[in-house]
């Protein structure tokens, strides 16, 4: 887990505390705010859980790749959208789970290793991803066809990058936290993906079994949010003591439309 980095300028601390809803309000005299305690690795806690879907979702839309002969031949099996990745007992995959409040004014170094989104067989891999502000997003084209990756954020700058040659890599860095940033390929209209851009490392994406684990949290009270591209967003309050390992499950209902 990245080590905490404390802001050095009092003014920035004051502004950050005000913006993030820090525990203690700014004093009228403008005195320096108490900094959040550094995270003690010996006391960190863990949140685990499972996300399930209540109800029978509609079948994922079939994808017709006739628009590009390469895509057609690259996929030997019928392709569908990844809207609902649901297990036999309703386990819901591709849910982005993250701490949405409670970290105060802590700041975290972004990893230098990039998160990779691969355009392979005319699909995005992964479909849902998470990365930190300042962490490189490496966009890779593994296909022998052209792709454009078009990000449609609301807090970051929109970008649309063409990758006409197999093996091309392009790095992009987001400058603001944002959940979630949609991606699409305008060449292949069926390609879509989502990224959660975070200011901290406490997030996870559910796998096929619907489970998630968020480790390394300092003791405290948090809001835990789960996001699904169709089922929406749910939030839970959770308080962690030192070395806690708490479970918090989410159950989404199939939207009516």
């Amino acid at each position, binding site marked *: 887990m990245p080590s905490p980095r404390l802001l050095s300028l009092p003014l920035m601390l004051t502004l950050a505390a005000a913006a993030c809803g820090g525990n203690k309000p700014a004093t009228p005299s403008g005195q320096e705010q108490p900094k959040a305690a550094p995270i003690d690795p010996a006391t960190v806690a863990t949140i685990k859980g499972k996300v399930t879907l209540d109800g029978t979702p509609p079948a994922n839309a079939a994808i017709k790749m006739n*628009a590009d002969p390469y895509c057609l031949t690259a996929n030997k099996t019928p392709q569908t959208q990844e809207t609902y990745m649901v297990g036999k007992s309703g386990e819901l995959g591709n849910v982005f789970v993250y701490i949405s409040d409670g970290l105060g004014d802590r700041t975290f170094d972004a990893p230098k290793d990039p998160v990779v989104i691969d355009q392979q067989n005319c699909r995005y891999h992964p479909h849902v991803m998470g990365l930190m502000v300042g962490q490189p997003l490496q966009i890779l084209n593994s296909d022998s*066809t*052209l792709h*454009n990756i078009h990000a449609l954020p609301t807090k970051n700058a929109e970008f*649309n990058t*063409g990758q006409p040659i197999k093996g091309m890599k392009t790095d992009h860095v987001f400058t603001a936290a944002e959940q979630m940033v949609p991606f699409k390929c*305008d*060449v292949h209209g069926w390609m879509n993906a989502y990224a959660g851009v975070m200011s901290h490392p406490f997030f996870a994406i559910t796998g096929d079994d619907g489970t998630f684990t968020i480790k390394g949290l300092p003791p405290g009270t948090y809001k835990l949010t789960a996001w699904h591209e169709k089922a929406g967003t749910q939030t839970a309050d959770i308080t962690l003591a030192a070395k806690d390992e708490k479970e918090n499950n989410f159950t989404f209902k199939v939207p009516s439309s």
Partner: protein
Amino acid sequence: MLLHRYATFVAASTVLLIVAGGLVTSTGSGLSVPDWPTSYGWSMFTFPLKNMVGGIVYEHSHRLIASSVGVFTIALAVWLWRAEPRRWVRGLGFAALGAVVLQGVLGGVTVLFFLPTAVSTAHAGLAQIFFCLTVAIALVTSPGWRSAPANGWVDDPVLRRTATATTALVYAQILVGATMRHSDAGLAIPDFPLVFGGLVPPQWTPGIAIHYAHRIGALIVLAGISTTSGRVWSRHRNRTELRRPAGLLVALVLVQILLGGLIIWTRKDVAINTAHVITGALVLATSLVLTLRSYRTRFGDAVASTARAPRTLAPELDRSGARA
């Protein structure tokens, strides 16, 4: 005659260009080629054909057709400048050239800035103006325009006013439609002919408002076309040059309203959506032709006062001896 045929060819090419542009928007392919004026780094004209896949088919074809129309327009402007004796017709040629250049720049700007509604709408609106210019050039270089009928030109101030107003209304309606289209409000009202089961939306959002304005606009345009065509039918039924565009206008606007309904019922089928765009352009062009013909008697005086000898060979003009 050759110049008229060429101008007609340019106008017909513009119809194809508008179809291609309509397909780009209808298929959501506007950003499938992310760079401009290059295409994925290639020059527009050296972009490999094997790479024409998915949305690129629509976007790159649109660029190629637009470039071709641009070249055709340069040739038309030069031809008019060298062979056309009427200054204002030569001016139309240069106006068309300026419009097509600006149109290309707007197309590039809208790609580079991720299709902002204002720029995309301006691109759609200027496309119609350019189309009108090519249609006007084709019309005023036609033998029918230059040869006065045996019973003279129609001089009907009421028809001139209603036809002018109708053309302006059609253009305004196209702008509203383009705004709706480029702000993704085409299905903001999901039912047709009713509006959320009634006549007025029960709630208002920008999308619903622009969509509703387009529907109300359709009724206003229908009233305008009915008035103009009714005037032609009641007063000038024996005038073929007016009766034909008036009848065509009524037919086109009815088809256009049906297409508008079909867009809702089919949830924006690509072919129907595009047909709606091009039919709108044809309604505008037909209304313009009717309007210009209603003003023909005025043009006769203007032409006579500005007539001059052609700068170069223009045998078809020389032989006819006509300068009007």
